[in-house]
Every structure is written in structure tokens, then in C-alpha cells.
């Protein structure tokens, strides 16, 4: 897909995010807005998938896992816009009886979701398991997983990183949403992450660094990662992002991690985001 087309999709996804969290007055807009460009490019340009016939086992297609499940508004919008389920279902987000639970789950049978996430630090391990399953099946497709930077605090991330490096899981692409903010404040203050590039490299990973809000860079990095698959190393896209990207008053702060906008703020935010594909 052309870069401009991807940007138009991303603009609509950001509108969906604002409208979803505003609609139910709960959810996580900041991280969702920051990671939108990464996952839009992944689903609309890079991944080989078949949304019309969702397969839980993902055989014969690429697979994606969202480890930081709280940015579910972004994930749900992209799945709906890509054709996994009706767009108007986004209006049910976080409401009683919905398939769009606060954090993604398989319990409600929503197409596109393969495992629950929300309790942090677990998605990388799941993705490693799925990547090994692809090897056993001689399936050449890739497994992608998005992680937050806050969840790099979890020890399990490093269990999985060590395993993937040691066992040369080279059909796995991790994407680190490196916005340098978590609930209680900047990562530098809460838990200094140090040199993330050096850390993953020390675990045997190939690291590709990029601006995760520059659509051209995102597309290029994802294509580079596909070319780099099968060469004996897991790969990490170290994607520098801006929490709240696209909405001026949500950027440069961690305050919008899990806070919904009020009516006035939502109107302000939507005025900054072009409606490109039609609101749900």
C-alpha cells in the first residue's frame, strides 16, 4: 500500500481510538495513538493474512500478537478496518456483553485475537511458541509481536529474549513500542531501561532502530525484517514513538496512558484527525 494511503488509514484508526475511549469513558488512548503507525503498516502493508477467513492456528499466514494488551483500541480498530469483524462493533468497546473486552481475549470469539493479553510481559513468549510451531509445520510465514517499553521491566521478557536468541528463532520479529513512558511517569524515572539496543543484541538479537511514527521508516523497517528472517537471529524493531501521537495535548506526557477525554477534549482531538474512511 502507498505511504499516503497508509497514513490515511492511520488517521482513521486514531479517530476510532478517540471515539472508542470517549464513548465508554475508559481505556488507554496514549499508547494506542503512539503505536498506530506501526500496526497499521503491519496489517495493511506487510503481513500476509486472510482476514475474511480467520484461522486460530495461523497456518499459511503471518501472525501477530499484542503483548501490551491495554492498547486494545488501536488493535480493535485495525482489525475491524482490515476486515476481521464489522467496523460498527467498535461502538461496543468495553461495554457489557461485548466481544471487545477492555483487554483482548479469545473468550468472546472475536476474529483476529489468538490469545488473551493484558497481564504484561507474556506476549513475547507466546510469539516464540507460535514461531516454533511454524518451524515444525515448515510454514515460512513470520510471527510478529508488539511489546510496550514499560513491560520490559518484567523478568519474563528476558526469559523469552534469552530463549529466542539461544535457539535462533529467526522467524520472529519483535516490535518494541519505545515511547519511554509508563503509568507512573517516564521510564527513566520509574525504571531506567538502559541501552535497549545493546541489551537485545547481547541476547543474540538483530536490532533495527527506527522512528515508529514515520510511516516510510516503519514500512522500510518491516520489509527489512522480512528480508532478514531465516538468518539465524530473532529480530527486534526498536521503534521510537511518541505517546499520544496525532493529538497535540496528549503528546509529551504520560498523563493520557489510561485516561479518556471528556466531550470537549474529544472534540478537540477529533478536529486534529482527518476522517478518511468514515467513522463507525
Amino acid at each position, binding site marked *: 500500500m502507498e505511504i499516503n494511503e497508509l497514513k490515511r488509514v492511520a488517521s482513521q484508526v486514531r479517530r476510532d481510538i478517540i471515539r472508542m475511549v470517549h464513548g465508554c469513558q475508559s481505556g488507554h488512548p496514549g499508547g494506542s495513538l503512539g503505536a498506530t503507525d506501526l500496526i497499521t503498516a503491519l496489517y495493511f502493508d506487510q503481513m500476509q493474512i486472510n482476514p475474511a477467513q480467520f484461522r486460530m492456528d495461523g497456518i499459511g499466514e503471518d501472525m501477530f*500478537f499484542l503483548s501490551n494488551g491495554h492498547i486494545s483500541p488501536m488493535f480493535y480498530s485495525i482489525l475491524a478496518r482490515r476486515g476481521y469483524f464489522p467496523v460498527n462493533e467498535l461502538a461496543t468497546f468495553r461495554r457489557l456483553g461485548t466481544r471487545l473486552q477492555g483487554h483482548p481475549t*479469545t*473468550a468472546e470469539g472475536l476474529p483476529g485475537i489468538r490469545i488473551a493479553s493484558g497481564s504484561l510481559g507474556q506476549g513475547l513468549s*507466546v510469539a*516464540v*511458541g507460535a514461531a516454533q*510451531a511454524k518451524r515444525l509445520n515448515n510454514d515460512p510465514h513470520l510471527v510478529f509481536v508488539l511489546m510496550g517499553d514499560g513491560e520490559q521491566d518484567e523478568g519474563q521478557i528476558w*526469559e523469552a529474549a534469552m*530463549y529466542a536468541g*539461544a535457539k535462533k528463532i529467526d522467524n520472529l520479529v519483535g516490535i518494541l513500542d519505545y515511547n519511554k513512558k509508563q503509568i507512573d511517569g517516564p521510564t527513566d524515572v520509574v525504571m531506567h531501561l538502559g541501552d535497549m539496543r545493546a541489551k537485545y543484541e547481547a541476547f543474540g538479537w538483530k536490532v533495527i532502530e527506527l522512528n515508529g511514527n514515520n510511516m516510510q521508516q516503519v514500512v522500510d523497517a518491516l520489509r527489512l525484517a522480512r528480508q532478514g528472517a531465516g538468518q539465524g537471529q530473532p529480530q527486534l524493531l526498536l521503534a521510537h514513538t511518541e505517546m499520544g501521537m496525532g493529538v497535540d495535548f496528549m503528546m509529551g506526557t504520560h498523563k493520557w496512558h489510561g485516561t479518556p477525554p471528556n466531550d470537549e477534549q474529544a472534540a478537540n482531538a477529533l478536529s486534529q484527525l482527518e476522517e478518511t474512511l468514515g467513522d463507525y
Partner: protein
Amino acid sequence: METYEKKDTRSGFGAGLLEAGRHNPKVVAFCADLTGSLKMGDFAKEFPDRFFQTGIAEANMTNMAAGMALSGFVPFTGTFAAFATGRVYDQIRQCVAYSNKNVKIAASHAGVTLGEDGATHQILEDIGLMKMLPNMTVIVPCDYNQTMNATIAAAEYDGPVYLRFGRPKVPNFTPADQKFEIGKAQMIQEGKDVTIFACGHLVWKAMEAAEILKEQGIEAELINIHTIKPLDVEAVLKSVAKTRCVVTAEEHMRNGGLGDSIAQVLALNNPVPMEMVAVDDVFGQSGTPDELLKAYHLDTPDIVEAVKKVIKRK
């Protein structure tokens, strides 16, 4: 009583895993650096491509298994019961039980009969932890053959399973060819005066107790509840309607164990006098398995005493 060869239940698991692997190429196995202890070596040797050594990283192992399961495989994870449950409860909760993935959690060295390693390794809470999770099936087989057959049944069953077994060698009295039916209580012997519901290593102890009671004129009905969840409620109520009193016996904490499950059924349907042979809200300690069973009142005489006490309460 007839004598039987003594074998460890963990070896029954190893044999069952190998058999399941031969029968179904989708069966895979993970182990967190305890391949020898879990007797998974034969599987690893015969199916090296389907065996995954994870190192001492149980959280990663559990979630990798979930990722493998959603891709259509039947993964077993192997480690000690303490690390298979408490250490990774959140991983099991989110990615196995809530996500309803076809993962088989194989947990060895459960209970005090782990022995000398002491309380850090002797988990007595695992049945409770696992049975509280929706979607989870909880199986506690009693001897080598039953553990082997339960492993094969777990591989054939579609859904999360917790399979609990142990370290010591105990009499192997169930037939090798006895098909394991998940959720179906096993009648060991019929009686009219009391029902003993037992699981795991304490089934044999309960058989010994029933023999002693018989000499004293008490006819005990003994039922092996090898599946704690789903519980065979029909079998429980049918037996209790006849005997009108109950003793439960398990190598587990009273809170959350087999007795707790039986007590719920009785309280809701047919309250009758009941005694529980179980560990009473304390941690274990170092010792030999036999010493520990005595010290924590989980031995044959304890079951005999409990029966006499409960019959007086009728």
C-alpha cells in the same frame, strides 16, 4: 493384601508421554531443566524435534506452550508441581485457562512425599490453585499405570489439563490396560458403612486402611477420585446415599483440596458427617516420605482413625 511392584508415578508420566507422542505427531513437550526428574528423556530422545528444553524459565515455558497450542499442537510442560503452578499462576490464568488453550501442565514431585528437599518444593496448595481456574481440568492419578493412562487421556482431551503426580515409588495396582476416563470416579471396593474418597498416593493408603477396618468389622467403600475437576458428583452422591458418612484422604492442604470439593457437594446436596485426612494449614519440612506422611497425619492409621470417628458421628 496382594502385593504389587512399587513404581513411581512420574515414570508413569514418562511412559504415557512417549506413548502419546507415538500415537499423535502433534504432541510436543517442554521441560524447564528437569528432564531426568520428570522422566521425559525417552520422549526427548525419540522425538528431538518435538522436545523443547527451556532452561529454568517456567513462565516462558508456560506461555510458549500456549503459543504452540494455539497453532494446533498438543504441548506438555514439565517441571515440579511447585513451579508448575504457584510460580506461573498468572501465565496459566491468562494464556492457558482464560484463553482456553490445549496445554497439559505436567507437575511432578507434588506433596510432602517429595521428601528431603523440604517445604520450598513440597507444594500442598496446587490442586486448589488449579481447580479454581475456569476451563481447567485437574487430574491426580494414584499409581504408575494410572498416571501413564491419564497422560494418554490428557493428550486426547481437548482443553487445559493439570496433571499432578509424584516422586516416591508406590504400589502399582491398577491394570496397565485400564483406560482412563477423565471425570469418572473409580470404584476400588464397595462397602456400606463409610465412603472413603481418596486421590493420588493416598489411594493405596486408603486400601490398606480399608483392609484393617474390614478385620474390625467395618465395611468401607473406597472410591478413587482421580479427577478432582470436573468432579463425578453423581458417583459421590450415590455412594453417600448408601453409607451416610465420608472420609476424604489426600496429600494436599485441607483448604482447596479434594475434601473441600467433596464437602461442597455434600453441603449443597446431602449433608452427612465428614472427616478430612489432609494437611492442616501448615507448610511441610524435610524428612523421608514415610516419616512425613506420619508426621502430617496422612498415613494408613490416620485414615482408620478418621473412619472410626466419622462413624460415631452418624
